[in-house]
C-alpha cells in the first residue's frame, strides 16, 4: 500500500494518459523535513561506547542482557519451588524460603525481565531503526534510564542478603501482611523491594518519554503513523500505558514504605498481629489493591502489546504476506490499551470490595476480549494463502498463537465474575497467567531474537540448536501449564508450600505435580541450549547477508549491517509505503521495502488504503 503513488497517478491522469511519462521525481515526491537532522553525541572512549553508551542500540542490548540475566535467577527460583511442590519429602526448603522465592520469581519475571526486555530492550533497539531516525530523542536521558534500571536490579538483589531475607509477601505485596510479622522479609526485605520498584519506575519514566517522543517526533519523512510497523505501534502504546499505570504503583510503594518505616496508616487498619495490638488504625488494605491493580492490569498489556506487535511483523515477513487488516490491528492495539484501564478490579472480585463492582468489571473485561479476538483472527488470516516459511521466528510465532489463544480463553473464565469465584486463588489462575503473560510473550521474545539476531551481530543463529530449543520450549511449557488448570478445578489453592492430599482431592495431585516439575526442569534446561547458541553464534555463526529475511521494514535497510552509530550514514531514509508490501502482484521480488520509491516498482499493483 503506497498512497502517494496512487494519489499522484490519479492527479496526473487527467492530463497525461501514459503512466510511464510521469516523472520519477514527481511520483516520488515526499513532504520536506520540518526539523533539521538530529545532532548526535559521538563517543570517544571505550567507556562511553560500551558502558555509559548513549546509542539506543547499545542501550537496548544492555537492557536485554541485564533483563535476561535477572530472568535466569527467576528461572532458577522457579525450579527450587517446583522441586518443593513435587517432592515435599525432601524437606530442603522452609516455608519462609518458599514464599520468598515465589515472590521474587514473580516480581523478577513480570517487571525486571518482561517489562524491561520488551520496552527497554526491543524498544531501544527497534524504535529508532524502524522509524528511520538516527537515535532516541534524548540519548543522555536514555542512558540514565538504563543505569537507574541497573540500580533497581542491584537493590532487588541486595534484599537477598539483608537480615530476614527478601520479602515473601507474594508478588502482589498486599498489606497488611507485607509489612507485619508472620511474613518473611517484612522489615528490610519489603522496604528494599519497594525502593527497587520506585527506582524502576523512575528509570522507566526516563526511557518511556524517550520512546514516545521519538515515535511522535523523529520518524523519517513519509513515515506516517499508519505506515509504522506494528512492532512500533505495540511498543509505543505499551509505553503510553506504562507512563499512566506506573504512577499508581509508585504512590502505592511510597505509601507502603511510609506505613512500614514511619508508622503511617494508609493501608493499615487496627489489628492484632501475633497476639500484639499494633499502633496502626483506620487504613484500608483494599486501597492498596486498587492502586496495585490499576497498575497491574495495564501491566499485563504492557507486556502483551509489544508481543502482539512483534508477532504480527514476524508472521507477515515469514509468511511472505501482508498482515491482514493492518488498520484494524492498529485500532485493536489502541483499543485494548485504552480498555485496559477499566478492568483492573477483575483481579479483586473476591477481595471484599463492594461486590456490585463485579457487574461493571466483568462486562468491561469481556468487552476487551473482542479486540483481542480480532487480533487472533487477523494473525491466522495472515497465514491463509500465505507462502509460509517455517523458519524459527515463524515457528515461535505459531506457538505463540496457540499458547496465547489458550491463555486468552481461560481469561474468559476468570473474567466472568461468577466463574472466578470457585477458581480464584487456585492453580487455575497460576496456569492462566503463566500461559498468557509468561509463556506467550516469552515465545515472542525467542522468535524476535532469532529474527533480529543478524541485525545485531551480522550472523545467524544455529538453526538445528534453535529447532531443538523451540520444540522443547513449546511442547514442554504447554505440558507444564495445560494440566495445571485442572489442579485448579480440583480446588488446589495457589501459594501453598505443601499440597498434601486433602480429603476433597479425589485423585492425588502429587503425581501431576511431579510431572509438571520434571517438565519444568527440562524446559528450563533447554534454555541453556539457547544461551549457548546466542553466545557461540556471535563468533561462530554463519555470516548473514543483508536483510536475510527479505523484510520490508526500515531496520534492515541501513547502509551497513549491523547498523553503525547514527544508523543511516549521510541521509535518513524516505518512506513511500507501509511495511507489508509482500507478494505484490506485478512486482519483481516478493517484497518491496518501505524506502523503495514508486518509480522503481511501476509494474507492481500496490493497493491504496
Amino acid at each position, binding site marked *: 500500500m503506497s498512497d502517494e503513488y496512487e494519489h499522484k497517478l490519479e492527479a496526473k491522469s487527467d492530463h497525461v494518459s501514459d503512466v510511464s511519462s510521469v516523472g520519477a521525481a514527481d511520483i516520488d515526491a515526499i513532504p520536506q523535513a520540518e526539523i533539521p537532522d538530529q545532532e548526535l553525541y559521538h563517543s570517544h572512549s571505550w567507556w562511553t561506547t560500551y558502558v555509559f553508551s548513549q546509542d539506543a542500540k547499545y542501550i537496548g542490548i544492555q537492557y536485554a542482557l541485564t533483563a535476561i540475566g535477572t530472568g535466569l535467577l527467576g528461572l532458577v527460583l522457579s525450579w527450587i519451588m517446583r522441586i518443593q511442590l513435587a517432592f515435599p519429602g525432601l524437606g530442603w526448603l522452609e516455608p519462609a524460603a518458599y514464599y520468598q522465592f515465589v515472590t521474587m520469581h514473580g516480581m523478577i519475571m513480570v517487571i525486571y525481565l518482561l517489562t524491561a526486555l520488551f520496552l527497554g530492550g526491543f524498544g531501544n533497539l527497534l524504535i529508532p531503526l524502524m522509524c528511520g531516525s538516527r537515535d532516541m530523542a534524548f540519548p543522555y536521558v536514555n542512558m540514565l534510564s538504563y543505569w537507574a534500571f541497573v540500580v533497581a536490579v542491584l537493590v532487588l538483589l541486595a534484599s537477598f542478603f539483608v537480615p530476614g531475607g527478601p520479602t515473601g509477601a507474594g508478588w502482589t505485596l498486599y498489606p497488611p501482611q507485607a509489612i507485619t510479622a508472620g511474613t518473611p522479609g517484612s522489615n528490610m526485605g519489603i522496604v528494599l523491594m519497594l525502593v527497587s520498584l520506585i527506582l524502576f519506575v523512575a528509570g522507566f519514566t526516563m526511557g518511556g518519554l524517550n520512546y514516545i517522543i521519538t515515535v511522535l517526533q523523529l520518524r523519517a519523512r513519509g513515515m506516517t503513523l499508519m505506515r509504522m510497523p506494528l512492532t512500533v505501534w505495540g511498543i509505543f502504546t505499551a509505553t503510553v500505558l506504562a507512563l499512566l499505570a506506573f504512577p499508581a504503583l509508585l504512590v502505592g510503594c511510597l505509601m507502603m514504605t511510609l506505613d512500614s518505616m514511619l508508622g503511617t496508616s494508609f493501608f493499615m487498619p487496627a489489628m492484632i498481629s501475633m497476639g500484639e495490638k499494633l499502633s496502626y488504625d483506620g487504613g484500608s488494605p483494599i486501597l492498596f489493591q486498587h492502586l496495585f491493580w490499576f497498575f497491574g492490569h495495564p501491566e499485563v498489556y504492557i507486556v502483551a502489546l509489544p508481543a502482539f506487535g512483534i508477532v504480527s511483523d514476524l508472521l507477515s515477513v515469514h509468511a511472505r504476506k501482508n498482515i491482514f487488516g493492518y488498520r484494524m490491528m492498529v485500532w485493536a492495539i489502541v483499543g485494548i490499551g485504552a480498555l485496559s484501564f477499566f478492568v483492573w478490579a477483575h483481579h479483586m472480585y473476591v477481595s471484599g470490595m463492594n461486590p456490585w463492582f463485579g457487574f461493571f468489571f466483568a462486562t468491561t473485561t469481556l468487552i476487551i476480549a473482542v479486540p483481542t479476538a480480532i487480533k487472533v483472527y487477523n494473525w491466522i488470516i495472515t*497465514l491463509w494463502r500465505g507462502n509460509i516459511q517455517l523458519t524459527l521466528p515463524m515457528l515461535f510465532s505459531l506457538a505463540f498463537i496457540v499458547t496465547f489463544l489458550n491463555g486468552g480463553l481461560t481469561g474468559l473464565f476468570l473474567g466472568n465474575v461468577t466463574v472466578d469465584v470457585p477458581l480464584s486463588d487456585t492453580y487455575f489462575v497460576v496456569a492462566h497467567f503463566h500461559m498468557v503473560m509468561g509463556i506467550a510473550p516469552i515465545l515472542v521474545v525467542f522468535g524476535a531474537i532469532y529474527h533480529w539476531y543478524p541485525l545485531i551481530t551480522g550472523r545467524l543463529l544455529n538453526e538445528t540448536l534453535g529447532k531443538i530449543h523451540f520444540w522443547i520450549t513449546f511442547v514442554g511449557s504447554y505440558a507444564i501449564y495445560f494440566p495445571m488448570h485442572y489442579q485448579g478445578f480440583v480446588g488446589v489453592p495457589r501459594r501453598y508450600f505443601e499440597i498434601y492430599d486433602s480429603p476433597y482431592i479425589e485423585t492425588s495431585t502429587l503425581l501431576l505435580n511431579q510431572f509438571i516439575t520434571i517438565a519444568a526442569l527440562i524446559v528450563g534446561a533447554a534454555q541453556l541450549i539457547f544461551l549457548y547458541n546466542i553466545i557461540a553464534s556471535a563468533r561462530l555463526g554463519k555470516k548473514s547477508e543483508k536483510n536475510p529475511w527479505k523484510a520490508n521494514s526500515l531496520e534492515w535497510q541501513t547502509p551497513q549491517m549491523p547498523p553503525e552509530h547514527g544508523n543511516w550514514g549521510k541521509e535518513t531514509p524516505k518512506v513511500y509505503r507501509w511495511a507489508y508490501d509482500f507478494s505484490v502482484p506485478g512486482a519483481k521480488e516478493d517484497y518491496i521495502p518501505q524506502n523503495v520509491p514508486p518509480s522503481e516498482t511501476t509494474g507492481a499493483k500496490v493497493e491504496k488504503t
Partner: protein
Amino acid sequence: MTVAIVFLLITVGSVVFHFWSPWWWPEVASNWGGMDDTIILTFWITGFVFVVICLFISYCVWKFGYRKDRRAEYKPEDNKLEKRLTWITTLGVAALLAPGLVVWNNYVTVPENAYKVEVFAYQWGWKYRLPGNDGVLGKTDIKYINDENPFGLILEDPNGKDDRLVDGDELHLLLDRTVKFELRTIDVLHNFYVPQFRGKMDMVPGIITYYWIIPTKTGDFEVLCAEYCGSGHYAMRGRVIVDKEQDYKKWEAKQITFEKMLAQNKKNKNLQLAKNNK
C-alpha cells in the same frame, strides 16, 4: 508437514486430556451448582473456538508451505469479513457473560432469612461465633479483644450475651439452612474457602465481608485459607461438618455462650484471688 501434525496433535491431545482427566472438581455440596454450569458453558464455547483456530493453523501450515515459485495472496483488508468476525465474537462473549451475571446477582444478594455465622480468622487458624436464640450477632470491636473476651464482643451490646462461641477450627452447619458467613479477621487478609461449597470471599481487617450458601449435602469438609496470609498460610485449615437436625442440635448445645463464659471467667478469677489470698 511435521509441524502441522504436531500442532494437530496438541489440539487433539488437549481435548482428550480434558475429557479423560481424572482431575476434576469435587462434587458440589451447596446451592452453587450454577457456578459449575457456567464453567461448563464457558468450556463449550471457548473449547470450540480453541479447536477451530488450532485446526485452522494446522491446515494453513500444511496447505500453504513455502514454495519458491508461488506467491502469497495480496489482500490487505476485507471489511466485510472483519465486521462479521467482530459481531460473532461479540455475540459469543455476550452468551458467556449474561448467565454469569445472573448467578453473580444471586451470589451477592443474601436472602433475608439467612442464618448468620461469624467466621473469625487469625494467623493461622479459624474460630466461629453463632448468634444465640435472638438470631442476632452481638457487635464487636478489635480493641476489646483480650484473653477473657477472645472475640472482642462489646459488653454493653445485649445481643452479644447469648452468642455461642466456638473456640476451635470445627464448624457445624445445618443441612439445607441458608447461612450467611460474616467474615472477620483481626490481622491480615484471609479467605474462607471450602472447595465443595464453591463460594469464596476475602476477609479484610477493618471490615466485615460476607457470602452465603445453602449446604445441600451432609458430610465432613475441609476449610482452606485461599488468600495468602504469611508463612503459615498453607497450614491454615479447618473443618466444616454439615449435619442433619438432630446431630446439629447436639453440637450446638455444647457450645458455650458469651454470658456463660464471662461468668466462668469471673469464677476462675475469684478462685485465683482466693488462692492468692491464702
